[in-house]
């Protein structure tokens, strides 16, 4: 790993919450980003009601987002208890979303280059692969919708399905640095639209 890469990694591990540029999601049930920014009155009610303390108030000022709620998946993922959906006074978080299956915060993407399970798989099949090879399967074990949102192909490699809610628990537990799994918030399916969330750009996809 070059010096530049290690500096970049150190910056990604920034201890000041609110400065994560990737794996930053809205609370479950949020309407799309543009409408959310208009409707959210920064009342902190979702922050207050969250029993796991994962919904946090943004401190960044870009595009006037200061005070809006974010989940920083690298610190802690959303447990999908759906408490925050009922409290929003303006409907920025849709109160009709009450079941975890209904939510679509985003969708997880696995970086197959660095994922321990994928490296193990490649080494097993005789390919050249650098890095730690292990059957870690942390993302599979922690997923609230196991076997539905994520499954292990051949019992080895984790694969994300359409049912992924984007809660970010897998990101929280991923042992590699930088994380091999990230949440791509909804409506940002490819690198061109990823914008602020450069995980896709970093992966080059």
């Amino acid at each position, binding site marked *: 790993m070059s010096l530049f890469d290690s500096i970049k990694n150190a910056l990604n591990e920034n201890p000041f919450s609110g400065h994560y540029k990737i794996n930053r999601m809205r609370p479950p049930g949020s309407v799309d980003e543009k409408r959310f920014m*208009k409707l959210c*009155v*920064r*009342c902190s009610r979702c922050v207050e*009601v969250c029993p796991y303390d994962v919904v946090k108030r943004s401190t960044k000022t870009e595009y006037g987002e200061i*005070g809006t709620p974010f989940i920083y998946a690298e610190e802690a993922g959303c447990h999908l208890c759906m408490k925050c959906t009922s409290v929003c006074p303006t*409907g920025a978080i849709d109160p009709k979303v009450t079941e975890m299956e209904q939510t679509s915060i985003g969708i997880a993407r696995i970086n197959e280059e660095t994922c321990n399970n994928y490296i193990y798989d490649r080494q097993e099949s005789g390919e050249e692969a650098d890095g730690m090879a292990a059957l870690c399967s942390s993302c599979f074990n922690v997923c609230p919708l196991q076997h539905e949102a994520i499954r292990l192909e051949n019992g080895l490699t984790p694969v994300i399905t359409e049912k992924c809610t984007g809660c970010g628990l897998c990101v929280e537990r991923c042992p590699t640095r930088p994380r091999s799994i990230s949440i791509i918030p909804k409506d940002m399916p490819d690198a061109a639209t990823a914008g602020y969330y450069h995980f896709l750009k970093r992966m080059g996809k």
Partner: protein
Amino acid sequence: MSRCRRIIQWFFFLLMFIVPALNMLEIYFIKGTYISMDVGELAVSDPLAVLQAVFASHEIKAVMIASVTLPLLIAVLLGRVWCSWACPYYLILDGIEALRKKLGLKPLKPVYSESGPSKANFFRYALLISGFILVGAAGVPLLYLISPPSVLSSQAVMLIKHFTLTAEFIFIPIVLIIETFFVYRFWCRFFCPTGTVLSIFKSSKGLRVEYSGSCSGCSRCVKACPMVLDPRKDGASSQCHNCGECVSICPDNRKTDTLKFRIK
């Protein structure tokens, strides 16, 4: 009466910290901040919050209308009682005034002038309207970054839950320094968007200070009024927030009802 008001003010001030603490203990009977609050099944929102969301997003939802009904009803019936009887920022200002008195500093309060109230009124309505135009243009409810009760209350949640304050708190020390050393209650008198929205709904039939027409003319009420009004003239004006300082200080009230609260 001023004692009663002080107790209610402290109650609302402490409630700001108690509600998140209760939520951390998983007691969810009362939850929210002073921007929006749920008491049991009853949802209450600040009219300014809902108006901003409507202006920014161009949509009105049933939830929004339902939650502003109670505050607007209170505003119509009792006037701007939120400001003087509940607003946590107002309590801090009262504290600053008492502190200045204790330290023997010269009072900052300007002398009452005839044109003062109408000037202040013009200023704050112009600010509110331009604020709403800005909110509509930017599509972001910006006025909440400069509304002391909402900033205080949302920062109280951050303090209790995460032991941190976010950047918008910086606004509070800035205005407090101005309030302490330069201009007397300038935020409440000239700027506060929350108070201005509430004063739109203050009706002339609701709770107001009424003057019987003649008194000994000590003008103690004018000196006591925190909004720099003349209670004998401006009792029903939209700037009066029914704090009752003038009513409790008036010496003539002991003999006849000179300066009293009245409804209808």
